[in-house]
């Protein structure tokens, strides 16, 4: 068995066949669309109640696709002509499924005509109130209206709506009044006017390259319009996503280039041969490649964040390669197969402990974490297999007999530094404990997902300005209203809307919208008709009013007849819904077995606590996605932390049985010091601490265990072991520690955590052998 295990040629062949099989599968899966970029895909589906999840999805569907463009110029004519040119450019880009510049008027006209047949059943709440208490006052208001200058719009249909009640109702159907010129919405600002252009993506999730196209289009058109003395303001979720992924990609690739160059120089100067560099790259590369292909075979699609974090976690595999390579140091008749026999246990225990820590992740219900776990586990196993199966053959004849510069550093660190630390262990330990305990005590997690967003200030300013000019963009928060049938739902929503009306008057929000303000139940429609009948039509008030204004008697008679004929008209919900505009339709979620639901959208919230309090109303739930997501993040941060502790204990137990308890504690003290120091440093240096740091801590755990193990099993090969560990630590620092320079908060926190953890593990690792020697 042992002999079979160390047959280099056959093993290399097995590796080759395996990689070819993976390659064939790779050809199949990589030709499909395999990368996922949407944020929601990372979140657990079971996490939210299904109806809330559905409401959120519907709410976001709308928001996530929309891009708003405002073209500003000195006059509306100029703004409109620029906007028309812009529209052509946007059309040419083929990025959007829907582009609206001229708002179709036919829809409004059709809507008017349809609702007009039900005018005696439809009353706005204010008019209803006045009719019930003081109908004379309403007629008085009409005279005010009729005498107002520029009242032309209101009196267009005066002939058929002499009470102007339908005019009132209809104008409230669109509470926000926007100016239209040539069918285009015109928004006045201080020194200029803006023309509005709305675009919608076809798909909620835009592929990465399209996101770049979108940014290019925005930048290009902004420059162009600036050159012709006008201004372009653009906002929308896709733009934020695009900026986010662009800056992350840019940084990761700059850091990537920097670290690759650093690693190459390091490995070339150390080994004075290109073979180690190629072999390390081959080990990690085949691990990554196989991880990608095999995960895709299982999952179909893989998220970009999985790729980033998973690839980082596979970085542990560098330890195996460096350990193997450095084992040859100073050996005259070095033979890779013999060497493997010697280091195989430490490589395998290293792999096992790391796999254990990643396996824990897959038990979480977070699809994102499961993906990362699967991806990195596969990657690690394949990288390990590459080292174990392929290296013995490819390292044949490899010698490492010169003294590289780094050896001095390794010796200084392994002998002098750790000797000094050992001698001064009492006070150093004391300082370290204070540092760790103090840091951990004041460590405060920040789970607010808004902190993770790193949108450029200009983008936020533009969004803010657009919100001011066009107060229709819906906030992230909304109400979900339900009732056991349509009538109950209607009642619940009306109660909520009345409360919101009061809050709006107190300026707690600028606007809200709910379907029940536009459609009334059958009972209400009958009630409205009766109110009109009693207060105006039967009381003689209508007749008096019309005659006083100058209508002739036939007109009065005809109006009364039309009213009588309309007695049994009822506007059904489905008829209303079919003709309602899209933004209203989006609010209705429908009825299914035993429940009807809708959302009430909110705009310009200034006091979220007051809104939250409305949840006590029956059938009303306040949905705050930002807070919900932050909560999920917090919960998973805690869960993953617990997982980290469980995994560490499990590894400790395994080592305990294998190497004895004292040794197990010795080995595990390295990752534990590294983890604790890293966490404490996060708090001392005021760094962001959230779920994402835990990924980094997992990596630190895996690496810490490796270093501890290698030194524990080094025996008399401490020099070559320290060479291997220092090389692997430096490459890891170059690869991930450099991420700490990033301006994207998540990436920065990730890099910082790793950098501190690796340095701590590196400094403490050589103590492992010393303790067992001298104690």
């Amino acid at each position, binding site marked *: 068995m042992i002999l079979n295990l160390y047959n280099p040629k056959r093993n290399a062949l097995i590796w080759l066949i395996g990689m070819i099989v993976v390659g064939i599968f790779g050809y199949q899966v990589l030709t499909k669309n395999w990368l996922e970029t949407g944020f929601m895909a990372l979140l657990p589906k079971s996490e939210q109640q299904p109806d809330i999840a559905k409401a959120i999805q519907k709410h976001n569907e709308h928001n996530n696709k929309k891009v708003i463009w405002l073209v500003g110029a000195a006059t509306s004519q100029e703004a409109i002509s620029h906007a028309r040119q812009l529209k052509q450019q946007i059309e040419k880009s083929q990025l959007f499924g829907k582009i609206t510049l001229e708002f179709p008027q036919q829809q409004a006209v059709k809507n008017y005509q349809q609702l007009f047949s039900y005018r005696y059943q439809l009353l706005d709440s204010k008019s209803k109130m006045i009719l019930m208490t003081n109908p004379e006052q309403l007629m008085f208001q009409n005279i005010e209206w009729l*005498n107002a200058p*520029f009242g032309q719009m209101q009196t267009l249909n005066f002939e058929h709506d002499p009470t102007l009640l339908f005019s009132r109702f209809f104008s409230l159907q669109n509470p926000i009044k926007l100016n239209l010129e040539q069918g285009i919405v015109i928004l006045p600002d201080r020194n200029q006017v803006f023309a509005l252009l709305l675009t919608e993506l076809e798909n909620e999730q835009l592929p990465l390259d399209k996101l770049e196209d979108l940014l290019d289009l925005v930048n290009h058109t902004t420059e162009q319009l600036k050159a012709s003395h006008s201004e372009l303001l653009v906002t929308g979720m896709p733009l934020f996503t695009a900026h986010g992924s662009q800056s992350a990609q840019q940084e990761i690739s700059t850091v990537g280039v920097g670290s690759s160059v650093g690693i190459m120089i390091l490995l070339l100067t150390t080994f004075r041969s290109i073979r180690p560099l190629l072999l390390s790259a081959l080990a990690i590369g085949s691990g990554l490649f196989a991880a990608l292909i095999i995960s895709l075979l299982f999952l179909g699609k893989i998220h970009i964040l999985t790729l980033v974090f998973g690839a980082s976690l596979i970085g542990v595999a560098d330890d195996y390669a460096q350990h193997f390579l450095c084992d040859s140091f100073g050996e005259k008749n070095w033979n890779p197969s013999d060497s493997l026999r010697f280091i195989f246990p430490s490589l395998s225990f290293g792999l096992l402990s790391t796999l254990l820590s990643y396996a824990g992740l897959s038990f979480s219900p977070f699809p994102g974490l499961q993906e990362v776990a699967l991806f990195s586990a596969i990657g690690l196993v394949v990288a390990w297999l590459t080292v174990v199966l392929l290296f013995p053959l490819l390292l044949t004849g490899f010698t490492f007999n010169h003294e590289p510069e780094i050896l001095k550093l390794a010796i200084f660190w392994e002998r002098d530094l750790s000797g000094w630390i050992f001698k001064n262990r009492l006070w150093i330990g004391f300082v370290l404990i204070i540092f760790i305990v103090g840091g951990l005590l004041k460590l405060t997690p920040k789970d607010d997902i808004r902190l993770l967003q790193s949108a450029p200030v200009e983008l936020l300013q533009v969004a803010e300005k657009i919100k001011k000019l066009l107060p229709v963009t819906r906030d992230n928060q909304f109400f979900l209203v339900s009732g056991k049938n349509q009538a109950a739902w209607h009642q619940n929503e009306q109660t909520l809307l009345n409360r919101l009306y009061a809050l709006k008057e107190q300026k707690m929000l600028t606007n809200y919208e709910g379907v029940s303000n536009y459609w009334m139940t059958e009972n209400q429609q009958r009630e409205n008709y009766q109110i009109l009948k009693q207060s105006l039509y039967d009381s003689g008030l209508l007749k008096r009013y019309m005659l006083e204004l100058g209508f002739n008697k036939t007109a009065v008679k005809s109006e009364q007849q039309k009213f009588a004929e309309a007695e049994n008209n009822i506007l059904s919900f489905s008829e209303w819904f079919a003709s309602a505009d899209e933004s209203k339709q989006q609010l209705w979620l429908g009825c299914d077995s035993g429940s009807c639901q809708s959302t009430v959208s909110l705009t310009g919230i200034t006091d979220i606590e007051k809104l939250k309090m409305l949840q006590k109303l029956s059938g009303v739930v306040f949905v705050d996605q930002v807070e919900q997501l932050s909560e999920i993040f917090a919960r998973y941060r805690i869960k993953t932390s617990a997982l980290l502790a469980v995994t560490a204990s499990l590894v400790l137990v395994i080592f305990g049985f294998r190497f004895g308890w004292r040794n197990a504690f010795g080995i595990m003290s390295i990752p534990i010091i590294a983890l604790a120091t890293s966490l404490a440093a996060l708090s001392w240096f005021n760094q962001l601490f959230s779920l994402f740091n835990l990924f980094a801590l997992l990596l630190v755990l895996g690496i810490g265990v490796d270093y501890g193990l290698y030194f524990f099993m080094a025996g008399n090969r401490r020099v070559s072991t320290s060479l291997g560990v220092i090389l692997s630590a430096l490459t890891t620092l170059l690869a991930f520690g450099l991420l700490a320079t990033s301006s994207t908060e998540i990436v920065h926190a990730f890099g910082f955590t790793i950098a501190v953890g690796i340095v701590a593990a590196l400094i403490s690792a050589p103590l492992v052998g010393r303790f067992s020697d001298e104690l």
Partner: protein
Amino acid sequence: MFIKVLLLYLSVVGQIFSDENTLNQISTRLVKSLIVQGDFKQEKKLKMLNKPLISTGKFTYHQHKGAIWKTLTPVSTLVLMNESTLLTEQGEQAIPEAFANVFKAMLSGDFKNLESHFFVMATNHETSWQIELKPKDELLQRIISTLTLTGDTELRSLDIAEVGGNSTFISFDKTTHSSQLSLEQEGDFEPLQP
């Protein structure tokens, strides 16, 4: 006869080509000040009514603040207007930029932006002038057929002819100028302050 026709033709053509010029000439005739105020009488003829709706009241125009339209008979109401909004006691409404423009132009005597929203026909006579405006915007065209302004050293009337046959005639009287608002006017403008 021929000469007469030719002269007439030339004068019409001349007028069309020199409308901007004419607007400037009219503008220079008008008395300019920070604040214009006076009385108005509005006669609205709605085709289904057998008598006109007549209202009277006072107006104030302030170059920077906008306009106060205070109806005193038959009911007393207050309407405030600035470049983008119309504020009545029953709430706020957006007004088309074109309308706001006309109102501003006719009360301030500054006609330079009129042509961005209207086809302009202006005639300048010895004692009086007249400006006819036809909307360029399609949507407005469906409602308004012509706006006619007349005046001498002051604005005298505004006639709004609607496509549907309704019309509104506003005449201005007792126009005076000042550089300071009265306390009452200050108070009336209050709701328009942002």
